[in-house]
């Protein structure tokens, strides 16, 4: 290990305790020991990638290093400590005021700094990518150097640290053998990593892109191919050589633009966990019915990404949208190109009988416009039009429960008069929205869970079933109930709103 690394860590030091204290404070405020629960809740996607990454990252660090580095750090930090005390305090206070974001960023920077060296080679890049896909359990890459902190006697922020460190490394944790041998028992990497996972992942993403650029500069053939691909795409846009289906859906565009842009949001911002993807058919039509929430329909976007990303066939979800979407300039074309069409029975039935996966949010504006106090309480499910569409086409209905969207924009108020003036169904006020202006339009990074339930089969009803209102109401209720139940169970499983 080089001296440069140690020095850089020293440079970052003042920020770390501040970030930590903020997070700890948040933890206490919420009265929740997220870490403890995390240990008990098994993870879905994390472990395998983690093992690999740890295995990847450890070799550069020699077994002696963790011991050596802390000593160096302690020594250097101790030297500087009188000067550093107050800045640390100040910065931490500031950060507390500004919210956790900046703290996260700072921490993420550090994490990224620690991470950069092993990323330089092409082979390691693969492994880091895989980790960013499973951000729940990330282990801080700078782990081997972390142990220094608890031992730091001069920093007033530190006394809180031992509380965290009391927890021994979890035996159930899938920690690679190489790692275990490296890390002394005092180390407490998991919480740090977990806390900072979002920001870290974001920075990792940016770093990845940068690295991509660097690597491709090193390999001109790669860059050429990329440029050529983009050129071809643009050329095809300019010559009009792309295909639209009858609904205006453009698969090439959908894959290249909206899905590409939404993927980072899906992976790293909301860290969407998908369950029950096997309930979606590999081929043929199915109607996915989901709950709606969160002021603007990000849940529909995330569900589309989830289906495309997680489904083995990478199917597209054809969403049904309100007419407001199709009368709004720019949004109209974008929505149609990305696979949306008007929520109407003719369109739904046509899509289903053509064998598409169709997504519908029957609560509509009642669902996304409801106040935060009514979160996760399903509203009326339209008039059951979606059930009759499924009955007429004999396609299964798949209930889908989305947890997390409610917290992206907690609606605490509504301005109906202004909304009417603007021709909108509601005008939400969130804790940040009109207050912080455009900044308030950034969704809060809540933790999302999407569960696709067991399909409700509709093809064994007699042909005229869609004309039987009682049956339609019954089925509507049944599906609504099933989504509501799943929502409750998912809420219990979710460790906290943001993690």
């Amino acid at each position: 290990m080089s001296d440069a690394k140690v020095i850089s860590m020293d440079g970052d030091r003042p920020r770390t305790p501040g970030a930590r204290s903020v997070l700890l404070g948040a933890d206490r405020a919420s009265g929740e020991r997220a870490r403890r629960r995390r240990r008990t809740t098994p993870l879905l996607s994390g472990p395998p990638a983690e093992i690999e990454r740890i295995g990847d990252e450890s070799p550069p660090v020699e077994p002696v290093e963790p011991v050596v580095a802390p000593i160096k750090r302690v020594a250097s930090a101790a030297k500087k400590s009188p000067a550093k005390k107050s800045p640390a305090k100040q910065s931490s206070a500031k950060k507390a005021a500004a919210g956790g974001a900046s703290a996260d960023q700072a921490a993420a920077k550090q994490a990224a700094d620690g991470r950069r060296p092993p990323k330089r080679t092409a082979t390691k890049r693969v492994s880091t990518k895989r980790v960013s896909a499973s951000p729940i359990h990330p282990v801080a890459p700078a782990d081997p150097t972390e142990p220094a902190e608890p031992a730091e006697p001069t920093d007033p922020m530190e006394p809180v640290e031992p509380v965290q460190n009391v927890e021994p490394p979890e035996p159930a944790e899938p920690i690679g053998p190489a790692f275990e041998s490296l890390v002394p028992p005092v180390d407490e990497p998991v919480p740090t990593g977990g806390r900072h996972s979002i920001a870290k992942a974001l920075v990792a993403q940016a770093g990845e892109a940068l690295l991509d650029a660097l690597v491709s500069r090193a390999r001109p053939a790669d860059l050429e191919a990329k440029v050529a691909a983009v050129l071809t795409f643009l050329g095809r846009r300019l010559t009009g050589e792309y295909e639209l289906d009858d609904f205006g859906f453009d698969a090439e565009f959908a894959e290249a633009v909206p899905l590409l842009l939404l993927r980072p949001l899906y992976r790293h911002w909301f860290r969407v966990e998908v369950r029950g993807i096997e309930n979606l058919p590999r081929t043929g039509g199915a109607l996915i019915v989901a709950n709606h929430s969160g002021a603007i329909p990000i849940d529909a976007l995330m569900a589309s990404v989830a289906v495309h990303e997680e489904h083995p066939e990478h199917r597209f979800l054809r969403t049904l949208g309100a007419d407001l979407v199709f009368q709004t300039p720019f949004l109209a074309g974008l929505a149609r190109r990305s696979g949306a069409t008007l929520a109407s029975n003719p369109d739904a039935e046509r899509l289903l009988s053509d064998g598409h996966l169709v997504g519908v949010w029957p609560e509509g504006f009642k669902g996304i416009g409801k106040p935060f106090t009514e979160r996760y309480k399903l509203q009326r499910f339209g008039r059951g039009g979606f059930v009759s569409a499924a009955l007429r086409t004999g396609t299964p209905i798949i209930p889908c429960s989305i947890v997390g969207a409610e917290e992206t924009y907690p609606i605490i108020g509504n301005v109906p008069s202004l909304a009417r003036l603007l021709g909108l169904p509601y005008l939400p006020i969130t804790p940040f929205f009109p207050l912080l202006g455009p900044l308030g339009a950034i969704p809060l990074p809540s933790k999302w869970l999407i569960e696709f339930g067991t399909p409700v089969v509709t093809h064994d009803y007699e042909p005229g079933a869609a004309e039987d209102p009682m049956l339609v109401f019954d089925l509507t209720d049944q599906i609504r109930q099933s989504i509501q139940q799943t929502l409750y169970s998912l809420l219990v499983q979710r460790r906290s709103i943001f993690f």
Partner: protein
Amino acid sequence: MGRVVLVTGVSRYLGGRFAKVLSADPEVERVIGVDVIPPAHDIGSTGFVRADIRNPVIGRIIEHAGVDTVVHMSVIATPMGAGGRVSMKEINVIGTMQLLAACQRSPSLRRLVVKSTSAVYGSSPRDPALFSEDLVGKVPPRSGWGKDSVEVEGYVRGFSRRRPDVDVVTLRLANLVGPGIRTPMTDYFGLPVIPTVLGFDPRLQFLHEDDSLNALRLATLRDVSGVVNVAGDGVISLGQAARFAGRPTVPVPPVLGTVVRTLYRGAGLTDFSREQIRYLSYGRGLDTTRMRAVLGLTPKFSTREAFLDFVRTRRLGGPLSPEVIRGLEERLGGLIGASPVGAGPATAPTDGLPSSWEGRD
């Protein structure tokens, strides 16, 4: 037994071509063409009668000639060609009423074919992606050709109630394009700079004029009745169409619509009706299931092919036509040194892009 067919509007482009096609058909004994002015083009062996359908004389023609099929093609779309909107409305609506009145009196009549338009559905953001014949648009057209057509269809429905023994076929044709036809849409794509509605890229559907003739022929000779949508397969977006035509587009914010409209009308280029602007905002699509099942028509040209044929035969290739762009792309690719893949859209159109984008994961 030979059929005696009366065709209205033969002096117009499509009417004339249809009369010619029909007069060459062995199943048809005689074709009588009616219009107010003599046809300027060849209408084959069609017997031309100069008459105004707004005049009761049409009834006597039907009676004397023993007409068993009337093909009504005299609903016109271009107010600039007809001498203004008032006269256009007169020809379309009053003419149809007179013609139907004459038809109702005729004991020999067995079949009525009306050429209508998909504009009767209107265009709105609350409409389904594709209209089947039984659907009604949420916002029906309120002016111009579309409104005339809605009224004409209304009278035709009234006629079919009063004469249940007559088979009535109403063909709702998508926008016609082709080497010769002139409609507001063909004028529009002939503009040097195509104004579009800012923020909208609607789906358009076209029908090649040859396919429309085929549809009219089948509707005249086959045993069909009812309303049938006729359109080429698939849709293209307005942006695509403009690219194919090689014309630059200028997005116009809706508030400036009137200004642009006045500009273009003042220059004598084209006139945008309010319905056309709606269509250029929200687009429209037709479900052509009945066209295949009932009419038995399989269009030779898809929407895209029809439009490309239109661009080719009219030599519309503007400054931004695909060939030019492709040339530029090649040159650019050559500059960067990425020519192996970027060279021709033919070499890597399908797999070049997706693989590299997906490859990120």
